């Protein structure tokens, strides 16, 4: 199978033709006139290395009513992703080699993108006893990222040991930074809006206190730390300080924290209920600045599907979390690129190259050049569209961007040379 992309714009602005033969990029040149099974005229649309998500809830096993690995893969491809990282908070928890191998195999069966499982740090995510991290690392799934996401590894001794232990196989601990005592019953960002709405506050300090502690721990034991979904201006400053000291820390921000604020909560619509919560305008601006200057290394979706009944209720009884895979790139284009804060090359770095490097996904985030694996995402940079939750490939509909107009649209995705997204349509028959 040979595919020829005509008039593709590389992230650096260069216009080229790209020939893909089987799994690999065969040629990148100003003009290629060779024959191909499929020739796609891109009219100067951007071609990026396939997007890589470090934070995805695929819900399988256990909550197949919300999402499955297969539907989550379709959603990922629709959003331009060629690799996603399946979070461990499934039922059963992904805290054994058996469960991570199951998730890995489900991803391979779906065949639309790579699904790399994240392993739990502690058994059952209970924060007390280390899970078999080594067994998960040595499994077929070759787990390198470990996280109790949804829960914080709050015991400092457990966190220290986890950070140290994974060094032997170059693992990384991805921390959901949330001091549990300071966030008991927390419903939304603590500030002027929560004071008026009478919803229990989730203070920024509860996130920053754990980040500060973990940065010091990571420095002390010389281990790699990844901060999940950073949301506060103070957190950005802490990470910036730690990087200046040479701490091996990386951090992610979600698309929703780049765009939405706690003002949305005034509707009491639980589609805006998420953990960590939507913060203030000041935090949003600090996150954008941090992503632009590289303090924040990656954009990660925290794609969190929930069935309708878990959101169609009172705010305080609703589930935390929102969809993200299909809108992530558009949100980043709208908030970061169209505003002039970031270039397309920086976008490719934050959404593909850096996440692939952090996770050790060697077949992803490669340079768009001859011999690289053909994991590629095509983006029409000038297309604008109104988000419609009903058109999602996800099983769930908890889309906080519904009705918003966003810029930049993913049109095609090649996964290891296979055209898995063709003109915005997921090509599930690609494996036949």
């Amino acid at each position, binding site marked *: 199978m040979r595919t020829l992309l005509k008039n593709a714009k590389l992230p650096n602005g260069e216009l080229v033709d790209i020939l893909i033969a089987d799994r690999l990029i065969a040629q990148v040149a100003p003009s290629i006139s060779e024959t191909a099974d499929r020739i796609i005229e891109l009219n100067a649309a951007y071609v990026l290395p396939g997007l890589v998500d470090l934070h995805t809830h695929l819900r399988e096993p256990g909550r197949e009513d919300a999402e499955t690995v297969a539907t989550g893969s379709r959603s990922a491809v629709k959003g331009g992703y060629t690799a996603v990282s399946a979070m461990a908070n499934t039922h059963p928890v992904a805290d054994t080699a058996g469960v991570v191998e199951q998730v890995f195999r489900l991803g391979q069966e779906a065949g639309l993108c790579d699904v790399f499982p994240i392993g739990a740090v502690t058994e059952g995510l209970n924060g007390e006893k280390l899970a078999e991290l080594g067994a998960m690392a040595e499994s077929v799934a070759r787990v390198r990222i470990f996280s109790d996401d949804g829960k914080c590894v709050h015991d400092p001794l457990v966190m220290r040991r986890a950070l140290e232990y994974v060094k032997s196989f170059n693992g990384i601990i991805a921390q959901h930074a949330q001091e549990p005592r300071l966030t008991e019953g927390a*419903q939304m960002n*603590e*500030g*002027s*809006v*929560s*004071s*008026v*709405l*009478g*919803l229990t*506050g989730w*203070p920024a300090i509860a996130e920053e206190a754990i980040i500060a502690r973990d940065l010091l721990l990571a420095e002390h034991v010389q281990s790699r730390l990844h901060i999940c979904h950073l949301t506060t201006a103070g957190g950005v400053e802490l990470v910036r300080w730690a990087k200046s000291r040479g701490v091996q820390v990386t951090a992610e921000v979600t698309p929703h924290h780049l765009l939405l604020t706690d003002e949305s909560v005034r*509707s*009491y*619509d639980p589609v805006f209920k998420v953990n960590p919560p939507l913060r203030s305008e000041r935090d949003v601006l600090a996150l954008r600045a941090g992503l632009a200057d590289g303090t924040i290394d990656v954009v990660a979706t925290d794609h969190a599907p929930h069935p309708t*009944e878990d959101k*169609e*209720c*009172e*705010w*305080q*009884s609703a589930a935390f979390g929102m969809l993200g895979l299909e809108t992530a790139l558009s949100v980043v284009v709208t908030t970061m690129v169209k505003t002039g804060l970031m270039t397309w090359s920086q976008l490719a770095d934050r959404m593909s190259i850096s996440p692939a490097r952090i996770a050790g996904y060697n077949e992803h985030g490669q340079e768009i050049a001859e011999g690289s694996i053909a994991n590629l995402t095509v983006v029409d940079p000038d297309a604008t569209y109104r988000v419609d939750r009903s058109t999602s490939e996800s099983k769930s509909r908890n889309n906080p961007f519904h009705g918003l107009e966003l810029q930049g649209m993913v049109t095609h995705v090649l996964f290891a040379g296979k055209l898995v997204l063709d003109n915005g349509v997921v090509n599930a028959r690609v494996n036949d």
Partner: protein
Amino acid sequence: MNSHLLSINDLSVVEAIAILNTAEELGKISDGPMKKLPTLRGRTIVNLFFEDSTRTRISFETAAKRLSADVINFSAKGSSVSKGESLKDTAQTLQAIGADAVVIRHSASGAAQRLADSGWISAAVINAGDGTHEHPTQALLDALTIRQHFPNNGGDLSGLKIAIVGDVLHSRVARSNVLLLTKLGAQVTLIAPPTLLPVGIETWPVSYSFDLDQVLPEMDVVMMLRVQQERMSNFFFPTAREYSKSYGLTNARLACLKSTAIVMHPGPMNRGLEISSESADAKNSVVLEQVANGVLIRMAVLYTLLGGVPLQGGAETKS
């Protein structure tokens, strides 16, 4: 006012004063020989209480019956919190029954707004207390009580100094009162230990203090809030004794009040904790007037939402 009463923010100054005026007009009728009005005959009002509150329920029930409405009391013991029937299913049931208005009391902040905005039900929704968010009819009855003691030509509360004392953080009464009393021109001061004032208080249109003794002598109105016993287990203050000493309306503090000042409490009172028994029963305590005005205000709200034109009390045309 639109078709619901979810928050004091739903009311303009004119609309709020119109409700107070309507309540006073209804009060004149209630003082007469025939207490009952035919206004809402044939209309069905559901008291949907997810939280026990005999006092508020009885007040709404009395108000509805005096307007000749049919009243159904729906005590929803289970909520989606306790995995009973969901708010949605309850709402759709009430819709099918044909409720014209739903008076909802719920432990979740925003529950009334969810009910009104969801499209599950077309009835008028009246918030009778949602979590720690708002309790608008309580604020309206408080405003009416204050106005009766400090009448002015505009029918508002301009120039009055009002203290709200106690657990502001968890108080829906305080939130609604802050919005309404300041809307009507009063200067509101909140007094509480720092632990019981919300983060973000500096954005509210009020002043606040940690020192009750300094503030009390200049106040026209002192509104004491109920202290929930469970607050002590979460370190909001060390002991009931210490709270009472610093923030309770003791006999000594009662003696410091202006002679014209009134003492208010939304009930139920913890005598000896936030208010001494003598203060609660003092001649300037208006606690029972609040209860009586509660019925009139709820009649006025039902009347306005379901009945039609406001009753003329004079101030309505002065906007």
